[in-house]
């Protein structure tokens, strides 16, 4: 029992409780912008957790993870534009398209490693970005407004902001739980083994390519779900959702929070997006501060925030 009671775990529980209380607080002070900000944070945290599954545990640094946000989003947006609003149809399709794209990209890029892998995932994401720009019927460069959120009958009404927030939060916690189960399963052990020493894993008989590909597809699918949530949150989809700097942001979230743990990226997402909000309130040129912060994190805080907390917990 006492082994679980340390600074870091108290922090994690406090963060989850805080996230759960955001709608209450927003209603009390009547600040709905806060609610919208935190919905976005929760959704992007989900994307960052999925990225961390392949990047932190599998050693596959994907620089194109935002593409799945776009694919999940466009699957919903295109169906909505064509008059199909049922979430029971839209969401499975969003997941399936993300999974298919992840399968194709993974099958090609996992043949390479290191820098090649980083650049190839970036290039494929950029390809999807340009395809989306070319989709004139669906708004092209300008994107399109989605007039009706996904309909789930009497189950849940996504237009209710509080209900939608709790749905996102529940899905985030579910994602963290699923990733945690994956990481601690035999499958997850193989993935982590392949990160440390791929050749040795192959020598003792694991077809690591297949394991990594499955892992890559799982991460892409989860991120596609985050994309589906994101369009329902913003009621809008444009190629900007998958601009390559968004992929960079997701990597920053994972690293800033801490790649070694399943929950780290959630901390990173909250920290990055809140910091962004605060800095942009201070100065219009906030990225001039943000950029060097990234560099400093790389140079001095490699374990991320979660790593610092874990270190403090051990003493």
């Amino acid at each position, binding site marked *: 029992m006492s082994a679980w009671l340390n600074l870091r775990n108290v922090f994690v529980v406090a963060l989850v409780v805080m996230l759960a209380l955001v709608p209450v607080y927003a209603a009390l002070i009547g600040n709905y912008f806060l609610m919208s900000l935190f919905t976005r944070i929760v959704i992007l945290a989900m994307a960052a957790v999925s990225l961390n599954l392949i990047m932190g545990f599998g050693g596959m640094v994907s620089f194109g993870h935002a593409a799945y946000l776009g694919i999940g989003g466009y699957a919903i947006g295109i169906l909505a534009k064509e008059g199909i609003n049922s979430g029971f149809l839209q969401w499975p399709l969003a997941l399936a398209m993300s999974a298919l794209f992840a399968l194709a990209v993974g099958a090609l890029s996992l043949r390479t490693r290191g820098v090649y892998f980083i650049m*190839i995932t*970036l*290039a494929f994401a950029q390809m999807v970005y*340009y395809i989306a720009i*070319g989709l004139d019927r669906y708004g092209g460069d300008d994107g399109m407004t989605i007039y009706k959120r996904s309909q789930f009958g009497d189950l849940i009404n996504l237009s209710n902001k509080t209900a939608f927030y709790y749905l996102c939060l529940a899905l985030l916690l579910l994602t963290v739980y699923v990733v945690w189960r994956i990481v601690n399963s035999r499958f997850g052990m193989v993935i982590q083994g392949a990160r440390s020493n791929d050749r040795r894993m192959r020598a003792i008989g694991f077809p690591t390519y297949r394991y990594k590909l499955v892992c890559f597809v799982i991460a892409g699918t989860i991120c596609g779900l985050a994309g589906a949530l994101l369009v329902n949150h913003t009621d809008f989809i444009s190629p900007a959702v998958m601009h390559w700097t968004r992929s960079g942001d997701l990597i920053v979230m994972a*690293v800033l929070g801490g790649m070694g743990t399943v929950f780290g990226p959630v901390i990173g997402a909250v920290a990055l997006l809140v910091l962004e909000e605060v800095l942009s309130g201070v100065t219009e040129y906030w*990225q001039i501060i943000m*950029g060097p*912060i990234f560099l400093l994190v*790389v140079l001095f805080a490699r374990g991320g925030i979660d790593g610092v907390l874990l270190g403090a917990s051990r003493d």
Partner: protein
Amino acid sequence: MLYFIEQCLNGVQLGMLLFLLAAGLTLIFGIMDLVNLAHGSLYMIGAYFAATFAALTGSFIAGALLALLATLLVGMAVEVIAMRRLYGRDHLDHVLGTFGLLLFFNELVRLIWGPAGMTLPLPSQMLTAVEVLPGVYYPLYRLVIILSTLVVALLLYLLVMRTRIGMLIRAGASNREMVGALGVNIKLLYTLVFGLGAALAGFAGLMQAPILTVQIGMGENILILAFVVIIIGGIGSIRGAFVASIFVGLIDTVGRAFLPDLLRLFLSTNAASSAGPAISSMLIYMLMAAILVFRPEGLFPASNK
């Protein structure tokens, strides 16, 4: 047919531009093992410097030369302040650190030059067209870009393969410690190589400036194309970068110009005009995927890796 030749020349010109960026990237990667996302920022800075200095001095050539020198200095300063600390680290660290630098540079440029873009007017004698083949006219300035880049490529080849500095650079790529132990100031050498890469990017930026508007983020899309080039050519290989640049430049430009018409032969006009742009922007990525299937290390993998 005339249109086709013109488009091919445009493709070669884009390829040359890509080569300038890819050569710097691949040189820095091959020697320092560093992935540099901020390389596109140096391209942007080169263009901004050129526009500013040309306006100040009133001469395009003087502006270009000053911009080249200034970009070289900025590159060396960036190496000393930031990049030096990233050598020997994980590639993920490089990606993150240089991503931070890129955001910094974009914002710095916005702070100094403002959010509106700039233009770099060409000298009037450059505005004419030349008859390259009987009946085929081509803008003189674009020919100047192609030729000057060829000269730069040749100089780069001579520098790396035929001079003492080039010999040290190649030696530093194979064994950093040994070169250092033999009494070469390897830190200074790295700073010089980074500055050289920056100057190449700045040269690309300032040559392209009169054709496009000089604006924030102008280096980013072309940087990703340069990544595609060095993946195809093989990371660390300048020869590979040269061949792949021309390939990518030609396929991208010619594809965009002719694919919609080609599709019209098979599809309805409506379908072709909507699918055309999307498919032609995919062409180079499909080429990259195809090459990866057969040669995961690129066309000309660097032999020392």
